[in-house]
């Protein structure tokens, strides 16, 4: 079974618990602050959508139906790097969602310890139990509702795990707190923007950059990126990639699986120690029936000197299902979809002996420009028009002053202005229609409104 599928199952159990138990929601919000809002939920909609995406009807549930089932699946699944970080974070969330209280069933904790074991020294269940205790340790939990406090909690968890010998070199083997991105909204709350960044001295600049090329991703993402096929250059320096991601690449038909056609541009700026991979949907997308309506962003690796790197990841995303921004962000958290560079750095570059691929970026150059922003284009057209009319008036004025302006000149000038106006008329209608189509495509949704 796919590791991501089981992680989604854990986060899903947390989500359902938050929906019915306000006290649990408040505890979960200490680690996942999006749950501070009482109306935020995503899992049931995500299950519904996953079933809708299937090419054929099936009664098989796409995700584990209980916390125990998800944890037991993970108990037999090897893990390391960022996938271990996500596993730890998901289980920390479960500790908050399902605390020990009188009358509650804590049997899931045995499965949680077994699920943690594969990523710990000796892979022992005893260490899994100890790690579970650290993840729920009250004195380590964030005392303030700030990203810094949550980062501090994660650092303390790793420090405790390291000092007790459960994880070796936790800073480089595990990396920063998962699901830590800053979330904002665009397009009336329908597009989620997720921005995250971290600094690390665990990997050298060139090695980190060597894993940025998308063809590395399927090997570095532990089964989430099923395909990243380079379909060739579509414009100078711009490559078309066919992307397939799934919660279970080995069983895509029953799992949550989507594909997207993406353009990538790679840029290197040696003077700044800066490597950038930018992506966006290919021209002509989204098309009717596409699962992904918006997908664009940057992966940035910046050398800071002294062997330290700064990594920035941004992603704008909207699916063809009316998830709220909060729901989208929680889905991204469960999938690890918006934090790919963490996998590239902490799973592939830091841990594997695997050789990357030379970063293909060129120095910054202007590519074939895409169509302008409508506001710029309209302004340019108007200015050009008025410049033309001013020039005609100036010429007419000079001829008038010289006593040469005639009815024929007037007819000629009027004809020119008419031709110009007619041309702009047509252009403006096309521009308006194109903007409308773009806006309509961006806004195309099969359902009425966003769900929280």
């Amino acid at each position, binding site marked *: 079974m796919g590791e991501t599928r089981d992680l989604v199952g854990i986060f899903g159990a947390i989500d359902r618990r938050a929906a019915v138990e306000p006290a649990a929601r408040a505890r979960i919000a200490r680690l996942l602050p999006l749950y501070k809002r009482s109306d935020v939920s995503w899992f049931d909609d995500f299950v519904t959508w996953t079933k809708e995406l299937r090419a054929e009807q099936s009664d098989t549930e796409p995700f584990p139906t209980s916390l125990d089932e998800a944890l037991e699946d993970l108990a037999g699944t090897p893990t390391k790097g960022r996938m271990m970080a996500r596993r730890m974070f998901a289980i920390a969330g479960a500790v908050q969602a399902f605390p020990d209280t009188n009358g509650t069933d804590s049997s899931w904790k045995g499965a949680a310890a077994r699920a943690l074991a594969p990523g710990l020294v000796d892979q022992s269940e005893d260490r899994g139990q100890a790690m579970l205790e650290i993840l729920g340790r009250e004195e380590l939990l964030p005392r303030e509702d700030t990203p810094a406090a949550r980062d501090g909690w994660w650092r303390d968890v790793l420090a405790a795990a390291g000092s007790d010998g459960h994880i070796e070199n936790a800073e480089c083997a595990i990396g920063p707190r998962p699901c830590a991105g800053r979330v904002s909204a665009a397009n009336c709350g329908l597009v989620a923007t997720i921005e995250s960044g971290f600094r690390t001295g665990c990997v050298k600049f060139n090695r980190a950059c060597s894993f940025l090329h998308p063809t590395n991703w399927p090997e570095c993402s532990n089964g989430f990126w099923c395909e990243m096929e380079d379909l060739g250059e579509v414009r100078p320096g711009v490559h078309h990639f066919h992307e397939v991601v799934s919660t279970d690449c080995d069983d895509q038909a029953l799992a949550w699986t989507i594909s997207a056609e993406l353009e990538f541009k790679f840029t290197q700026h040696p003077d700044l120690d800066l490597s950038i991979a930018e992506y966006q949907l290919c021209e002509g997308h989204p098309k009717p029936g596409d699962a992904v309506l918006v997908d664009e962003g940057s992966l940035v690796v910046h050398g800071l000197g002294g062997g330290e790197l700064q990594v920035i990841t*941004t992603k704008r995303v909207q699916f063809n299902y009316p998830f709220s921004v909060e729901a989208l962000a929680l889905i991204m958290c469960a999938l690890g979809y918006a934090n790919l560079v963490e996998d590239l750095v902490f799973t592939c570059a830091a841990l594997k002996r695997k050789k990357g691929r030379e970063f293909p970026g060129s120095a910054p150059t202007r590519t074939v420009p895409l169509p302008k922003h409508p506001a710029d284009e309209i302004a340019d057209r108007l200015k050009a028009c008025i410049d033309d009319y001013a020039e005609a008036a100036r010429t007419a004025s000079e001829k008038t002053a010289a006593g040469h302006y005639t009815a024929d000149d007037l007819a000629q000038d009027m004809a020119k202005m008419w031709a110009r106006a007619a041309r702009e008329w047509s252009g403006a209608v096309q521009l308006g*229609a194109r903007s*409308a189509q773009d806006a309509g495509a961006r806004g195309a949704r099969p359902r009425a409104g966003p769900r929280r």
Partner: protein
Amino acid sequence: MPTPFTDLLRSYADLTSSLAEKWRTHAANVASRVERPGYKVDHAVSDLAATASLATETGYLLAAQAFEAVSVLAAPLERNVVFSEPFQSPLPGATLALDGQQLINGFGETLPASIVAIQPPQLGSGETEFIIRADATGRHAGTYLGKVTTVTPGASDHVDVWIVVP
């Protein structure tokens, strides 16, 4: 059932119909005047000015309609103000300005100078650090690159800058 798109097409049709009527009337008036005896240069200039005015009005109305197309069918935009990491001027106390008209990303999308600010535009005595601020509302995500000119009395230099629009 009417949709925003059909409403928009109807409004375009109404606009083009009213503009056509204006041009037809204007052309008929000018033609009738030109054919009259006594039509002079002053009259021609006046008619040309009226033509330019009508042409400009046409442009403005069409532009307004195109803006309307965007605003009707696209949702209102939330502000997306972004800040760069700090940069260092090689010249302490320099006056800073964007070199060129824009910052540009890998796909050729731009952040025009009009929405980009250098903070502070004038470094204090001995100071070197500045940041870039951009109101990237409605702009594509990406990493935008450019240069900042740093000028002090008697010296000038450039700094490569970049800013991530999430």
